[in-house]
């Protein structure tokens, strides 16, 4: 029942955006280029070096593609959470609390920014290229990893962003904090975690689980043991990590809404 309501909301959002075709087209192109520039940056680096953190160009491009696709999917479905500070500041959140639907669901569906499709398209194109050219020894298990990794990555990104944006419930205009996590996560996950120092590596593995978006799935696809000595099973853990991240984000969100309503303050 609630799903059908959501479908109607989402459908109406999409229709309203397609009403401005030129604007939509320009946005998509801008996003294609924006995401593509990051790929160019990686390729430029590889004109100077032959390996980055122990990975060659095609391997890093694979990680980039996994991260970019996951980021694009998450941005398309959860990106709207970055509007939370505005909802809080303007009191618009009150209006959401007065409807018989969940608050987060309403924020996420309030504006499906279709222009963000551009990022997904870039990500998928590079991903297809990387799957075809990086010499993956395809097994049924790897096909499964290849299919699920971008989705799990998107869920992990989405959960992390939701959790990061809830900071706005405590901090007046926490947008900057949240944005640094959101956009930082795209950048950080596009490279093998071996290029980072040990401290940041640990953060990416266990605190903000960015390593499970691209790094570990890429290792699984390439059939490489982890150069840092992390156990093999971690390479297949993204679905589990995604589920944990969603659970964590849900708890943080609920705490945030309760803080807004003023429970126990």
């Amino acid at each position: 029942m609630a799903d059908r309501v959501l479908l109607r909301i989402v459908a109406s959002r999409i229709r309203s955006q397609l009403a401005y075709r030129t604007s939509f087209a320009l946005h998509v192109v801008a996003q294609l280029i924006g995401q593509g520039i990051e790929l160019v940056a990686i390729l430029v680096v590889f004109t100077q070096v032959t390996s980055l953190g122990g990975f060659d160009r095609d391997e890093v491009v694979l990680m980039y593609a996994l991260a970019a696709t996951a980021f694009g999917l998450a941005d398309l479905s959860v990106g709207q959470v970055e509007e939370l500070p505005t909802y809080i500041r303007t009191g618009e959140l009150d209006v959401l609390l007065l409807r018989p639907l969940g608050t987060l669901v309403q924020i996420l569906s309030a504006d499906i920014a279709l222009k963000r499709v551009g990022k997904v398209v870039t990500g998928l194109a590079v991903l297809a290229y990387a799957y075809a050219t990086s010499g993956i020894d395809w097994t049924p298990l790897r096909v499964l990893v290849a299919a699920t990794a971008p989705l799990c990555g998107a869920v992990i990104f989405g959960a992390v962003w939701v959790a990061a944006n809830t900071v706005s419930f405590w901090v007046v205009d926490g947008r900057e904090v949240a944005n640094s996590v959101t956009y930082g996560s795209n950048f950080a996950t596009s490279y093998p975690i071996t290029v980072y120092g040990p401290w940041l590596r640990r953060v990416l593995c266990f605190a903000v689980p960015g390593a499970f978006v691209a790094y570990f799935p890429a290792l699984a696809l390439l059939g490489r043991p982890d150069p840092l000595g992390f156990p093999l099973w971690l390479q297949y853990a993204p679905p589990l990590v995604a589920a944990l991240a969603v659970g964590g984000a849900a708890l943080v969100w609920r705490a945030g809404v309760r803080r807004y309503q003023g429970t126990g303050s």
Partner: protein
Amino acid sequence: MIIQTRGLGRDFVVRRTRIPAVADVGLDVERGEAVGFLGPNGAGKSTTIKMLTGVLVPTAGTARVCGLDPVRERKALARRIGVVFGQRSQLWWDLPLAESFALHGAIHRVPAARHRERLDECVELLDMAAFLSTPVRQLSLGQRMRGEVTAALLHSPELLVLDEPTIGLDLASKERLRTFLAAVNARGDVTLLLTTHDLPDVERLCRRVVVIDKGRVLVDDDLATLRRRFAGNRTLVVDLVEPAGPLHGLHGVVDVAVEAQGMRQRLEFTGSAAGLIAEAARRVEIRDVTVDEPSIEDLVRTLYAS
């Protein structure tokens, strides 16, 4: 009893200081009543409404609305109440009004036939047919407020909470909205709780008035009783064709102030304006008259001083 609160209170902590926004509000509202909820800015009206609708958790006391605990049963309550904020929109700004209504109906699971019936009725009474397919962002404030009230009524709420619904509207729009709300309330199935700074809103819609200040209920009484006891008198402003001396001695006039060398006179009076105008017209030639109502602020100020 549709609203029942006991000792309802809400503190906010600002820089480690506890500031009570609402200190002690006890309120009983019966089904079908129309209650004007008044008070100066910062009196605690909005905070109280937020607690009644489940948006804000009370720090003291209890509230039951439609027999539910507003915070714990927020979504269930949302299905049974409608809320209109004069300064906030519940419509989707980039959708045509009709589509906003459709989504609103879907969210509240209003059966299609019921939805159409209710909508048709509102469209007719509020004269909205001409702009139903206009995106909400292109509507005038008056048109949008008609849309807001309609959206809040589509799911047949038992309680309609209106937070300054006529703010910023022109006179004609205000009047149209009041007429509509009075008709809705007259059918007896919708209870109205209304905050406003516009005394005519209250006079038109509410028989009962609750005045709060500094988070406490100052007065909870009949509007008529309240006016008799506390409100200042109305003032008849008379613009004359030729200057004249002060119009003393007219029936019901308690004070006369002369402006513009006797061309304009302000007559503070009790009783009927029509009789007074007729009587004044017999004494001098009148170009124009207006009647100034005592404002809610005046009334509250008088209350607070007493």
